[in-house]
């Protein structure tokens, strides 16, 4: 049996949740468990000590399967967690597409926990710790707009229009997330 073959590359979720694989492993576990149940009663009733090694072997297989399944699921959760930091709280459809309903639910709960944590910092508005991912370099940076994004308000109240191919001189802290989302691109001078 192939196990954990659904583990994606290093980051991100690039393959579907392996529902079929999971089902197969669970079926195998059920079969192993039933055989063991039968052998255990046989061993007890008829005193067949010769069955004990195969019972033990099956039990090891069961434990291994459990471990593999949990490791696979947990590994995906860690990737899904990373998505919150990469994309923000709204996932692009093509990413969401690869997640199971339960994973989407877990992501929602993670998002919520993180949000209430961030709100609670410092008492007032809180602090968005998913911003400021890189050390600040200078006050303003030159950015190019890669797609139409609409109006965008800067701290001092000025509203600018983020139109495809337009260039702007913007405060770094306002564009960080848009750069990560691929809306803006930092133009190196």
């Amino acid at each position, binding site marked *: 049996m192939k196990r954990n073959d659904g583990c994606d590359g290093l980051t991100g979720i690039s393959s579907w949740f392996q529902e079929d694989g*999971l089902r197969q492993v*669970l079926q195998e*576990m*059920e079969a192993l*468990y039933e055989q063991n149940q039968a052998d255990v009663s046989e061993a007890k009733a008829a005193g067949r000590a010769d069955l004990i090694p195969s019972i033990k072997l099956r039990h090891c297989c*069961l*434990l291994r399967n*459990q471990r593999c*399944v*949990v490791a696979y*699921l*947990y590994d995906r*959760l860690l990737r899904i*967690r990373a998505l919150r930091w990469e994309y923000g709280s709204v996932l692009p459809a093509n990413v969401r597409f690869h997640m*199971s309903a*339960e*994973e989407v*639910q*877990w992501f929602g*709960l*993670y998002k919520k*926990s*993180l949000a*209430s*944590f961030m709100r*609670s*910092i*410092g*008492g*007032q508005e809180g*602090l*968005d*710790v998913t*911003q*400021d991912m*890189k*050390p*600040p370099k*200078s*006050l303003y940076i030159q950015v190019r707009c890669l797609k139409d994004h609409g109006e965008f308000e800067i701290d*001092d109240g000025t509203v600018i229009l983020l139109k495809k191919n337009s260039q702007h001189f913007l*405060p*770094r*802290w306002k564009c960080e997330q848009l750069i990560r989302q691929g809306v803006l691109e930092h133009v190196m001078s």
Partner: protein
Amino acid sequence: MSDALSEDGSDINQDDSQEDVMTPAELIDKLEQAWLNEKFSPELLENRSEVVECVMEQLTHMEANLQRVKKGDAKAGFHRMEIDRIRYVLSSYLRSRLQKIEKYFPHVLEREKSLVEGQPSLLSPEEFAFAKEYYANTETYLKAVALKRMPPNLQAVDMLKAVPEPSLDSFVFLRVKERQENILIEPETDEQRDFVVDLEEGSQHLMRYRIVAPLVSSGAVQLI
């Protein structure tokens, strides 16, 4: 305009409930030390909520002052840049902690559970709430998707065994802030003997985190 920005933001000095009087500059130093220690220590360190709160207060105060400043004021830019820098350190510090909480959640929570009276808790109340939710969500998820579909004797996973523990035997780089004598270094191999070193103020070292963990907590050494 100068009114809005000439306060040096020394509010915390006037706060009587604050035990040790700290200037804002010292506060920022404290934050940076906590940040580097947290970055380099393999385990989660004790929370520094008081520092986080004071820094947040300073930032909010400064932001509020900046709102009152006229556009194009030269000083506002300087303050903006400084706020940016401080906010970066603060966010990065809190992120390091969150990452460790997520990475080691069962162990972190276990540590909180087994606190002895008077022992400080590692987690701030907010982090504690976060860790508990993370644990519950993850456990619920694993149960719903797989564990409850497994044979009866395999429906539980011991999270403490399943999630790796921080390795206190990791090596760390450190700088000594307060001189220490007779630090016992255990050998790496059986053929070697253990020995002691004195850590002179200002000297830098490479050794296992476990040896200096108490000194990191007390502030006698700084991880670098």
